[in-house]
């Protein structure tokens, strides 16, 4: 009896054709990322923790720009504003800009191997964080500590993992070479 063939848990090869993602899967992963952001981290672990929601959002904006775009990113950001009890519109604005930048750069980002994608993701996440700082400092808040620069970097380190996990259900069971 043959088990259904499952693709390996590794990055898709450049020649591999991914199936379109199912909408419920996108929603589920966004919910899980929100859950990850709401976990009660504190102290050093909080300083290290990447913004899971921004990462997953970025992945879908790059891979499925017709499902997830500026509008959805904005709504998700608003939910995050409530969850973190920050200013209304702070995450929303940052995520909307992130989604736009992802839409703008997606073709370029996808051309590179994963670790080089991660470098570009670090820049995109840093843009997002910089925007939040700008908004808050204009609103009268003090500058955050230097540890505020860590989450974009840890997020970029997590990018290959996120990519492998999120593209796994979209990978065909049998590769083109075996057909």
């Amino acid at each position, binding site marked *: 009896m043959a088990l259904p063939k499952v693709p390996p848990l590794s990055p898709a090869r450049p020649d591999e054709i*991914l199936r379109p993602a199912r909408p419920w899967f996108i929603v589920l992963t966004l919910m899980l990322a929100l859950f990850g952001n709401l976990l009660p981290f504190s102290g050093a672990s909080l300083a290290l923790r990447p913004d899971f929601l921004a990462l997953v959002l970025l992945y879908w904006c790059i891979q499925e720009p017709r499902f997830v775009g500026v509008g959805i990113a904005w709504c998700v950001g608003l*939910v995050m504003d409530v969850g973190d009890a920050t200013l209304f519109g*702070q995450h*929303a604005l940052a995520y909307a800009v992130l*989604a736009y930048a992802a839409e703008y750069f997606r073709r370029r980002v996808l051309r590179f191997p994963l670790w080089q994608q991660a470098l570009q993701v670090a820049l995109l996440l840093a843009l997002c964080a910089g925007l939040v700082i700008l908004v808050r400092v204009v609103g009268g808040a003090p500058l955050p500590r230097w540890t505020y620069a860590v989450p974009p970097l840890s997020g970029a380190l997590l990018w290959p993992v996120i990519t492998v996990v999120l593209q796994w259900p979209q990978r065909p069971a049998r590769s083109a070479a075996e057909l």
Partner: protein
Amino acid sequence: MRHIAADPPAFFHRGPSPLARLAFFGLISIALLFLDTRYRYLENIRHVAATVLYPLQRAAQLPGEALGWVGSYFVSQRVLSEDNATLRRQLVEQGVAVQALPTTQQENARLKALLDIRGRVGAAATAVEVLYSGRDAFTHKLFVDRGSDAGLTAGEAVIDAEGVVGQVTRVFPYMAEVTLITDKDQAVPVRVERSGVRSVLFGAGAGRTPELRFMAPNADIRIGDRLVTSGIDGTFPQGLAVAQVTTLERDTGQMFARITARPVAGVDRSRHLLVLGRAAALPPRPEEPAEAETAKKPGRGKARRG
């Protein structure tokens, strides 16, 4: 990593362009930010949304709590007996003070009656537990597990066993937000316990100790002085320990002395806190133009800002 369905050519209608969408949502965000910072119009919406999000928030606590249970199950006998011994010793030490308390209270009541001073109302207190610390890097906040269900209201003082921790700033149905005294926008009216000098302790933000501002260089204050709440704001009951003076720079060339004070309470450590109800009802304020009043009370006005 290409898709089977390639992107349609640009002349196929796909709604407004991404840039137009960004401009639209960006403008809404900026409007929301403006309304929230300047006018705080959106508190009702925030309450509703926070209530909807509450189950997910609560579920996110579960992994940590489960770890805590497992951890507490494996606490060693030695740690427990050490704790027990410490607590017993504290009990005996505090027992002395408690025995003397009724006499002191009676004496105090008599003296107050003699002097015709308004008594402090024994305000109701609610014990709360910290759910999680705020994730916003720009503010110092805590979230506790009781909210309007336990009758908390915004503005109440929050203390732990050692002293003042902060102030309730937002109340949701099942939780409340506490702004810590180290937050940049938080101010606590204090009195130097030794000399009685009044001042206001301002939080300084991330990683810095709170400071006493606007103190003349010759003010009667020394390193190591304890600061207690003065109670003149009607929010914090008087006499609660707040901080201890750690650095003091008197530069006669400057207008004011630079004084920083470290909070005595475990502001970022304590798990079990006490929310104190409002202190004695203050006499009504004299009629004043609204502007003059806000200008006179920077501490209270700022403390409400988030």
